[in-house]
């Protein structure tokens, strides 16, 4: 699997994502700068990492969604490429319109960093095919703006199309329907607030995120 990681000036999980993708794919990820305008040929997965893309003092991900690279990412997604947005990457995906809804300030109004319990709601995707439906996993979260909000029609559509990939199994940020991660209609774009790249190295004591990367490598590419 050939992967790429987009680096915005305020990304700070880009290296963590690079390490995780390198370990899972056995290949060196391409690091793309936000001012780049094209995706190199042969890339299978583009990851939008966590961080504070442009400081994000107001609407997280809003400025990043207007950066040159995101036009290329949108084209890549339209052609069926895999795009994974984690944390700030999820915020950028909704601001770009690649996923519906919006991420608001946590209901607690506080930044939250801890490992939380999640339920895998949907396994029919390249990201979740190595988990079982209803399985409970634990992943770290670290965000101030992770409260997922959408109107009822969108929420119903997400549910009807089985596009809610992950739900919180405990109170975290006030997200509607406890949504922690959602898929695009073609199931190739996943946005999620928890950090799988912080839970794939056995030395860190939690490898619940590793199957997301190995699943992508083993099955997503044959699809």
């Amino acid at each position: 699997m050939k992967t790429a990681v987009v680096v915005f000036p305020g990304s700070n999980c880009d290296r963590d994502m690079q390490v995780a993708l390198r370990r899972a794919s056995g290949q060196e990820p391409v690091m793309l700068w936000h001012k780049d305008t094209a995706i190199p040929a042969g890339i299978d997965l583009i990851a939008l990492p966590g961080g504070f893309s442009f400081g994000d003092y107001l609407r997280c991900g809003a400025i990043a969604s207007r950066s040159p690279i995101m036009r290329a990412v949108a084209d890549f997604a339209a052609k069926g490429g895999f795009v994974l947005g984690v944390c700030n990457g999820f915020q950028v995906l909704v601001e770009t319109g690649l996923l519906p809804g919006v991420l608001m300030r946590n209901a607690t109004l506080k930044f939250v960093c801890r490992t939380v319990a999640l339920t895998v709601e949907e396994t029919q995707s390249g990201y979740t095919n190595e988990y079982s439906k209803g399985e409970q996993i634990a992943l770290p979260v670290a965000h101030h703006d992770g409260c997922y909000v959408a109107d009822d029609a969108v929420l119903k559509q997400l549910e009807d199309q089985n596009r809610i990939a992950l739900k919180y199994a405990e109170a975290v940020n006030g997200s509607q329907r406890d949504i922690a991660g959602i898929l695009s209609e073609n199931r190739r774009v996943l946005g999620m607030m928890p950090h799988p790249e912080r839970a794939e190295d056995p030395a860190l004591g939690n490898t619940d995120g590793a199957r997301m990367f190995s699943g992508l490598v083993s099955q997503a590419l044959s699809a």
Partner: protein
Amino acid sequence: MSEPLITDALIADHGLKPDEYQRILDLIGRGPTFTELGIFSAMWNEHCSYKSSKRWLRTLPTEGPQVICGPGENAGIIDIGDGQACVFKMESHNHPSFIEPYQGAATGVGGILRDVFTMGARPVAALNALRFGATDHLKTRSLVKGVVEGIGGYGNCFGVPTVGGEVEFHPSYNGNPLVNAMAVGLADADKIFYSAASGIGMPIVYLGAKTGRDGVGGATMASAEFGEDAEEKRPTVQVGDPFTEKRLLEATLELMASGSVISIQDMGAAGLTCSAVEMGDKGNLGVILDLEKVPTRELNMTAYEMMLSESQERMLMVLRPEKEAEAKAIFDKWDLDFAIVGETIEEDRFLVRLNGETKADLPLKALSGTAPEYDRPWVATPAPAQVSNVPAMDTGEALLKLVGSPDLASRRWVWEQYDNTVMADTIQLPGGDAAVVRVHGTAKALAMSADVTPRYCFADPVEGGKQAVAEAFRNICAVGARPLAATDNLNFGNPEKPEIMGQLVGCIKGIGEACAALDMPIVSGNVSLYNETEGTGILPTPTIGGVGLMADSSKMMTVGFKAGGQPIVLIGAGGGGHMGQSMYLRELFGREEGAPPPVDLNAERLAGELVQALIENGIITACHDVSDGGLGVALAEMAMAGGIGCEVRSPGGADHETFFGEDQGRYVVTLSDPNTLEPLNELAGGAGIAAPWIGETGGDAVILGGASVSLADLSAAHEGWFPDYMGEIT
């Protein structure tokens, strides 16, 4: 624009005493211009000149084979093997945080991160030591909220894991909270950058954010006591922009890798003034600055304002001239300012011009070299009386109250607001003895801890100073690391009062003795004096930030009990029952009395080495040092962390002394099974350290002698206090 006349009132407003002003007149042979007065004020205030503490700081041990660079640079540097270096320092931002808690704390974090990456190191961990006023003081909650949010807001965005620290409450901090921020970074030992300028006619480059009017006079403000007008000083607090700092980090590291940098200095306290003078002074060169070239974000800034602005996220660099285009391209890539604002000259001169007009023309060396230095009168703190008539209390009731008391309750509410796992190398989260972060891509790890027990320092500065170092040492040993060095952040009241000066002298003496005995040289630090409001000083608070190294991070130890049926051993038991200055007396009976527990540095060292050996050899399964609250609280913390209870017998004698005495040099460890008692006893016997079996893990209660408290009750009290307290904010 006409500049104000230099009057006595203006001189006093700049924090300069009449004899200090006379010193200026003698030095330059004329009256200073307004800009020059500002420059002297910036260079000669306590914060920048260490004029009251320098004499005593010189007595601290600062050398050792592990030290690459001791105090005097932006941060200290130690050797961690394999050509790698660890760069670290702690610094206070106390005064700004009281005036404006969010920005004060945020820019404190920003400043210390900059100190570390200015030397070529990537920050990999941040810690902080926070002290607030009484929990029932009107301002305390909002200060806690603001400071914690500010630290998180800055560190989380910048992308450094905030992995540890301390939070305590005491009425002496009512008008003067302490915010001590520590940053730890990693660099290649042969790619470290220093601040000394070299070469004549070399371009001096301004990097980073634009200069505004924020923070003008901040360092002078930080060198004065607060009166009722504290709120009016808000404009002297800087405003932080962690996004810019993140870009400055990446751009600076790229710039260093490109070979463009001769020397570099961050603009911290007293901004452009301090950084330019420091670079020139260390390189024995003069400096010319042309201020119209300084990128500004406000119109019509005067020379005075530009020289004294403490706008954040800025650096000053001496550039290799042939690399100008390459260097500028890096800053363009990161959308940061890059401007040549001056040059180095041979002459000992600090010439500051604005649009060709001379605004300051001073002998550069004299600005730092002739700063006043005081041998302030001091009196030793009288020895405290030993405590007597310590009442007994039901052990269970006492334990429950202690684990739920403000200073011993869980700090989860605080550290869950800090991103502590970014960079994916944090292997021990906050809540353990020391935080542990892997050296990326290696088997090694760094262990870090920030410690001091101010009530001990107040009662007996020398023993308290020793204890602060010993506790940092112990916390690092307890996770399985070898302590290497420390940074100190000395927070005291007004040094012009002999009894306060006596506290400073005593604590430095104790710190020095402990650092020498435990082989933890002080490699960097910061002094914060005048921590007084309305004439009342804080408890003496010399925070020690220790750093240690683990060769094999897979052996790291944690505090939680691992399984039932494991023997519990107390390492370093001796005497026991020291109740003076204990949390038991203070929290349960409102008595802050007696002498603090004495520190036997030799025993401390032997016990620490024993614990390191036990962990290295895989003999123990959990380890926790015994500190505030004594053995009972240590056992309860281990039980709560592991979700497993324990039963510990009473050895005879008074239970409250056994379980709540705060004798030093002790650790609680558990063993996988009774068979490992033998190798443990062998190692302990060889070291001459007592290591009695005291009980066994298991069950769902903590049983101490005849008392039993359920884990559920303990956890509810321990985890509940902070959210309950802060929950009252809406």
